[in-house]
Structures are given as C-alpha cells and as structure tokens.
C-alpha cells in the first residue's frame, strides 16, 4: 500500500477532529443570499454527497470551501486551521493575503463541472505542473507520479495528448488525477458528471468510487442519486442556501423528513 499512488489515509480514532468544519457560513451575491447559516462537518475518510435543486447554493458551498469565493459570515476550518482569515495580535479577524490562501488551497482538490484542463498543456503536464510549481516537487518525481495517476484513471496511454483530443469523460478523469497529484486532504467535486454524455458518466463515477473505497475524504455535489446511495456515508440536502436535511443515504432517500426533500426526490424520480 505504500507504493499506492493515491494516498490511503489511516483510519483515525472515531472521535478524531473533523477534516472540515463549517460553522454558520453565509455568502451574499449582490443581494442574493446564496448561503445562509450552513454548518457542515466532514470526518476523515468520509464521503459526503450534497444534493439539492438548481440554485440552492451547492456550488457556492464547495467554492467557498476551496476559497474561490470569500465567505461573508461564519467560518470554515480545515484540520482545525481557519481558512481565508487570520486573527491578528489585536484579536482582529483579517483576510489572508493571496499567497497564504494559495497555500491552503493546495490541501484541497477541486474537480469542476467543466473540467477546466489547461488547454495548452499536454495531459501529463496538466497533472505534474502544479506539484512542481506550487509544492516544489522535483520534476522527475512529479512526472513519475503523474504517470502512475494517469494509469490509475485508465489514461496512461493519453499522457502526451492535448485535452482537446480527449472525450469529456477522459478529460474529467484527467482533472481528477490533476487534483489528486497535490495529495489533498479533501477532494471537492462540483457536479463532475453534469457536462458529460450519459454513456461517459459511468467511467468518471467509477474513478470517484475507487477514491472513496480508498477512504479519500470527499464532498461531492451531484445529481447522480444512485451514486449517492451506493457511495455516500452521508447525504446532505440543500435548498435556498441552507442545509435542510442530512443523514445516511437510507434515511435521506428512504424516509425523507421534510416536505422540501420529499418534493425534490419526487420530482427527481418523475423526471429522470
């Protein structure tokens, strides 16, 4: 297991501090309350799937966690470290300079709906560029690991191709390898299969499932409810910028407590 290219975290004690802790997170976009009072804990090795109607704030939540958006209320901690802010000597909360938030982002991997592979770089370079530039990993070592990661997602033979020469499913698998190359503590997925043709969804979900099996800590925003049933340790249902209901998949899908979740699930099963 030591040579495994994808990190396998040792299962911590049951009462270990959470990898991620969000408290009362709020975000406003020009008058629109995108997030309001969101609390979320994610434990080591846990897979949390976030579901909810369009516009409910799912993307905003993962983007706030990844510091791509600045939060307006509450706090987010990664391994007990406050994200995006520091407390100065006078006890005043101040935004971190970009250099410091960049360092925090390196500990989280983000997979976007639209892949966002670097169009002018080869697939392999997409994977090893950031470890070399941002983490200072020696280039030969980073290339070797990029090769292993690409093998892992079944794309070893595409290392020298450019992203435009790949199918959407292949591009998204490269994007996952690129994020994993930073050896993140936490992986964030924002509707990773929503831009894919239906027949390509499976290959991406397959890679995500194998990450989950290796106990990668993950937050996954998705409409693939079957994936949520099979892989999630916990399902979080969001609506109108708040967490409405959460729990194990059996409970959330089998015995939805709120009317909003019932409506959502009903609409979802009616219109595939």
């Amino acid at each position, binding site marked *: 297991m030591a040579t495994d290219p994808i990190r396998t975290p040792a299962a911590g004690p049951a009462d270990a501090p959470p990898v991620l802790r969000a408290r009362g997170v709020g975000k406003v976009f020009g008058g629109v309350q995108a997030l309001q009072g969101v609390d979320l804990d994610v434990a080591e090795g846990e897979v949390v799937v976030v579901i909810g109607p369009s516009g409910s704030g799912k993307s905003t939540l993962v983007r706030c966690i*990844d510091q*791509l958006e600045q939060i307006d209320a509450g706090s987010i901690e990664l391994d007990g470290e406050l994200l995006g802010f520091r407390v100065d000597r006078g006890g005043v909360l101040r935004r971190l300079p*970009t*250099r410091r938030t*960049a*360092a*925090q*982002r*390196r500990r*989280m991997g*983000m997979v*976007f709906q*639209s892949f*966002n*592979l*670097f*169009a*002018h*770089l*080869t697939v392999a370079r997409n994977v090893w*560029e*950031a470890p070399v*530039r*941002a983490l200072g990993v020696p280039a030969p070592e980073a290339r070797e690991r990029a090769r292993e990661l690409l093998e892992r997602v079944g794309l070893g033979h595409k290392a020298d191709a*450019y*992203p*435009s020469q790949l199918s959407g499913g292949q591009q998204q698998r490269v994007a996952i390898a*690129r*994020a994993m190359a*930073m050896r993140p503590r936490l992986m964030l997925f924002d509707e990773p299969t929503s831009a894919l043709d239906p027949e390509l969804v499976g290959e991406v979900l397959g890679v995500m499932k194998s990450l989950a099996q290796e106990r990668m800590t993950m937050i996954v925003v998705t409409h693939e409810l079957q994936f949520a049933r099979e892989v999630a340790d916990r399902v979080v249902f969001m609506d109108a910028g708040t967490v409405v209901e959460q729990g194990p998949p059996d409970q959330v899908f089998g015995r939805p407590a709120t009317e909003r979740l019932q409506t959502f699930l009903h609409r979802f099963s009616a219109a595939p």
Partner: protein
Amino acid sequence: MTGPGPRSLRATVPGRRGATSAAGPARSAAPGPGSAPSPAVTAAAAPDARDSRPERRPLLWLAWAVLAVLAAQLVAFVLRSDRLELEVVGEYLFAEPVLDGLLTTVVLTVVATVLGTALGAVVCLARLSSLAPVRYLATAWIAVFRSVPPLVQLLFWFNLAYLVPVLSLGIPFGPSFGDWDANDVITPYTAAVIGLSLYNSPYSAEIIRSGLSSVPRGQLEAATSLGLPARDTFFRIRLPQATRIILPPMGSQVISLLKGTSLVSVISMTDLLGAAREVYTRTFEVVPLLIVAILWYIVLVAVLTTGQSWLERRFSRGY
C-alpha cells in the same frame, strides 16, 4: 423514404452508368454477401456515391481565363515598357545605399516593435491595475498616443529641443542627477524610435489586453484552485493562452509599423524609401527606384508573415 430526391437521382444514374454497366451488378451485390444479385435488385439499384462526378464549374474556368489574361498583360507591359527600366532596378536592388537604407528600416522596425510592445505591456497592466490613478494614467496614455498621427509624432519629437531645451533626470521639483542638452539627445534616429514606439504602444496595449481577457475564467480558477502561485498562473497559464489570441493582430501591427517607418524620411533619416529618394533626386530614375523600394517592402513583409505563421502554429498546439 420515397421522397423526390432518390427518384430524381434514379432517373439520371442509369444513363451515366451506360459505360460501366458491367461493374453495376457486381457492386450492388457487394454489400450483402450470400444474397444472390437478383435482376430485380439490379434494376432498382440505389444510387451509389462512387458513381458521382465532380460538379461542372464554368465560373472556375472563366476565373482562370481572366487571371491568365491579366498575367499576360502584366508580362507584356513589363517587357514592352521602356520606362520601367528593369536594368536600373537590377542595378540598384543590391546597391550599397539601398542596402543601408534597408538595414535602417529593419532596425527601426525591430527596435520600435520591441520598445512599443514592452511599453504596451506596461500600459496594459496599468489599465488592469487595482489602483485607480494608475488606471487613469493608462487610459489617458492610450487616448493621447492613439489620437496623434505618426507623422505628426515624428515631427514633434524631432523638434522637442525647442519645447524642452534641457532634459534632466532627478526628483520632481527637487535636485537633478544629470542634465542633457535636448539637441544632443534628440537625433533623427532617437526621434524616430521614440515617435514610432509611442505610436505603437497603445495598439500593443489593447491587443495584449484583449488577449489576456480572452483566456476563459475556468482556466484561471483551475490554476487558483491548485494553489499555483500568482506569478505561475500568469506566466504559465494565462500568458501562453493569451499569446495565441495576441499573435494575429500583433503581426498586422508589426507590418503596419514596418510600413510606418517610411515616414522617417521627413526627419531626414535615410531608411529604405529615403535611400531610394536620395538616388532618384540625383539620377531622375524615379519609378525604377520606387520599384526597388517596393520589392524590398514585399520581401520584408513576406519574411514577417512567415515568422508569424510559424509562431501561430507553435502557440495553437492543443487547440
């Protein structure tokens, strides 16, 4: 599928097939091995794309004919005209004063391109600055230097010594570290470099800005999300992708600058055109020497165009 299309095709195909009737049945049998070709199938054979002929294009032949006539006219004119004096063109094409002028043109183009682009890059970054005064300065710069015609700028900078007799470097309204007589500093060459670079800078700035802003937001977000340092995000992700967009307009810009250098003869610089003029004011062989200059301008632009297409290919890898 019994529309008018197939029916009208069927009407024409048998006629065309007259000569290849032997191949007909064999082909229609090919798709279904095992199913014997029955006469009925052959008779009602579907049209086969392989039997199609190229479209007749009378307009194409007409265009070729017009081109041939024009070319013949040009050749006849060149051969018959006794005013073209091709031997004079040949005599001066590689003459030393002409080659010196050519070198001046090339050097001016290169220097003004490099300085103008560098200035443009600075102005562009200033326009994107988060500091408002810096943005205003850049906007004013672009407004001024884009408005003044290049010929006017050349004359103005050449006559700068009248406006500012002494150029000094130092603290504003404070002590000066060095003074220079503007008449010594402003030679025709420096005036030409300053004028052409300044004229070039607002265009370069706008071209670079449009290139930088054409890079999709997702590319920058991906880099940010990976925690790539800002410098690497700019130089390794944003700039290379912007370059692909920047190159075509920048190429045209360099070509107009090259042609713009022909204005410097008004401030008594001997560029390619200036050299030709110096010769023909002596010998009165005006047209042959203008043709010498024309031929060299065509060669220079051809070289630039070749370089540009090479660069464009280089930077469009992956698209």
